[in-house]
């Protein structure tokens, strides 16, 4: 990655971010429900800004979580959705709703961030435990398989809990489980997400070379002075919290956390000093773009669910990565 190429990458990323923001800011629906492309009315500006902020933060959080997981596991297929973190959050939040339905709503204070974090951590722990090969090393493909199964089970748990909930409480969960981008995000969740995103970006850039060194084998990174256990702990906590806040804000969105880091690396190279910030920008760009795209739907259907757009765009990307043997090409 020459300096010139990296410069070009930064320009490209900034352009895409600005373009997606502009697109989301200008797209709307007219009186008969047809999509329009025009400057918003004073009324709508606030909501479009709100949707932009929540998409910006959730996308950045997911993408940062993805890049941290990929660094932690040295696996380019890792992402909060693929490894089951999002579903884990979802299950734990559903459980919190259930407990709240019985015990009291205090558990859901702070917009479910606490149960979401617990869920993400649990899911990651289970995925790592079962994805770990016999020899102690982590086989990239079995890790992903383990994550997919953990995610499926966690999603099923979430459905089960939803099923157990009183009928009247189900809609609140159902909407969240499908993924959403709120025009008026809850202030507390937004602020916590913003803090998490900016802290993670700052720490990631600051400790860029340490994260780079995590790409070496464990013995090598230990012997060049990396406190491997400590850095891993930070990465586990960081990626879980980021996945959790994004899930609390926008629900379990697929693949943003996978594509974001790859887009970042292909633009500015693999060194974390650059790619962490680029990953945050890429994730934001992707989710904002997805939120914009879902408005381009006929009047008869209304706007499309965001979860569907993310999965439709991200699934093929994952398959292409798999086809290109990305899982094996990471470690050399």
């Amino acid at each position, binding site marked *: 990655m020459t300096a010139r190429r990296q410069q070009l990458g930064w320009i490209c990323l*900034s352009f895409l*971010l600005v373009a997606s*923001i502009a697109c989301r800011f200008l797209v*709307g*629906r*007219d*009186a*008969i*429900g047809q999509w329009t492309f025009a400057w*918003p*009315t*004073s*009324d*709508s*500006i*606030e*909501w*479009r*800004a*709100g949707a*932009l*902020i929540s998409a*910006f933060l959730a996308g*950045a959080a997911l993408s940062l979580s993805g890049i941290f997981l990929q660094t932690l596991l040295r696996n380019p297929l890792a992402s909060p959705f693929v490894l089951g973190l999002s579903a884990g959050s979802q299950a734990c939040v559903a459980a919190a709703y259930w407990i709240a339905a019985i015990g009291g709503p205090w558990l859901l204070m702070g917009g479910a961030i606490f149960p979401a974090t617990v869920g993400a951590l649990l899911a990651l722990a289970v995925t790592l435990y079962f994805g770990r090969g016999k020899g102690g090393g982590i086989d990239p493909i079995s890790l992903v398989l383990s994550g997919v199964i953990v995610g499926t089970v966690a999603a099923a748990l979430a459905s089960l809990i939803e099923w157990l909930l*009183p*009928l*009247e*409480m189900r*809609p*609140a969960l*159902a*909407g969240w489980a*499908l993924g*959403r981008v*709120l*025009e*008026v*995000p*809850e202030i507390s969740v937004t602020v916590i997400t*913003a803090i998490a995103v*900016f802290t993670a970006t700052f720490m990631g850039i600051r400790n860029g070379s340490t994260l780079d060194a995590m790409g070496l084998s464990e013995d090598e990174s230990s012997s060049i002075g990396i406190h491997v256990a400590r850095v891993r702990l930070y990465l586990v906590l960081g990626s879980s919290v980021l996945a959790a806040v994004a899930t609390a804000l926008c629900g379990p969105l697929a693949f943003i956390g996978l594509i974001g880091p790859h887009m970042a690396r292909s633009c500015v190279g693999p060194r974390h000093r650059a790619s962490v910030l680029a990953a*945050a*920008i890429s994730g*934001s760009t992707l989710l904002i773009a997805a939120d914009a795209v879902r408005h381009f739907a006929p*009047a*008869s*259907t*209304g*706007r499309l*669910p*965001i979860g569907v757009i993310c999965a439709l765009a991200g699934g093929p990307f994952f398959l292409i990565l798999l086809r290109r043997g990305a899982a094996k090409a990471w470690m050399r």
Partner: protein
Amino acid sequence: MRQAMLVLLMALAMAACRPQDAATAPAHLSDQPPRIASFSPALSATVVALGWENSLVGRTPWCKSTAPIVGSLNDVDLETLARMKPNLILIQQTRSGAPAQLEQVAREKGWRIEFIPATSLDDIRHLPTAVEQAVGKPAPISPQLFAQALEKELTTCAAAQKLSPTILLYNDEPIGAFGADTYLAQAWNAMGGTLAFSKSGNPNLSMEELFATQPKSIIVIVGAVGDKAHAQSHDVLGDACAKRGVSLLALYAPQLLLPGPEFTTGLSLFRAEIQKFCVAQAQTQAQAIQAPATTQVGALEVTADNISQGANKP
């Protein structure tokens, strides 16, 4: 840092918009023509039936109307909703209330949110009145008419008695039943029928559970055209019923699946169909056992009576 700037700009934009919104004071609804956004197909149908078709300015993708779609409770399209300038938002009553962001915006904009229950038969009885009350104006079409029409369909029906105890299904694969506390079961009771089981809600039943209750008949209410053929030719359920001498009746009546004003129409159709079914059943029985003609004539008379009663449309 560019991102930080953008977020800051957005925050500023938000702040700039706030005072303007606060200035629009919540107006008194009765002074203005109603502008209703409904987040429930049943409530949308009620609004239309009451003659406020032109006042319905927002609906879900599942409501039958030409009004713009303003999303669903899962994903409220605030912008479209605001563009339609509603002054009343109707939501089918839930304990969890409205989505937080809708509630917040409604408060700021002075939109009134009304929760109207639509679960039991009583809810359906009061639905038009409740919507009229929520709007706060006399409806173009009197809600009383709906209540009267509904009461007509809730009179005792010989066929219902004959088919009882029964199980009412809204789905045959997997088997989903109307529980004892649902509007259709309550209507069935009002028609003189009984239910073969006492579960509440909308339980999913296994084949075993279904027949363990020893129903005399099973009635499948089909809601989509594609389902109709499916339910009628559903061999597994059909065979099981035939083997146990249980009458199986599949009925295409989507109106019965929506606890709205069209329920009355559906009920009328339902009555007609079960009576027809009973007549046909009696005829095949008569042919099969070659019984004396007098009893059959009596049965036919009773059914014919009920058919004419059932055909009385509001």
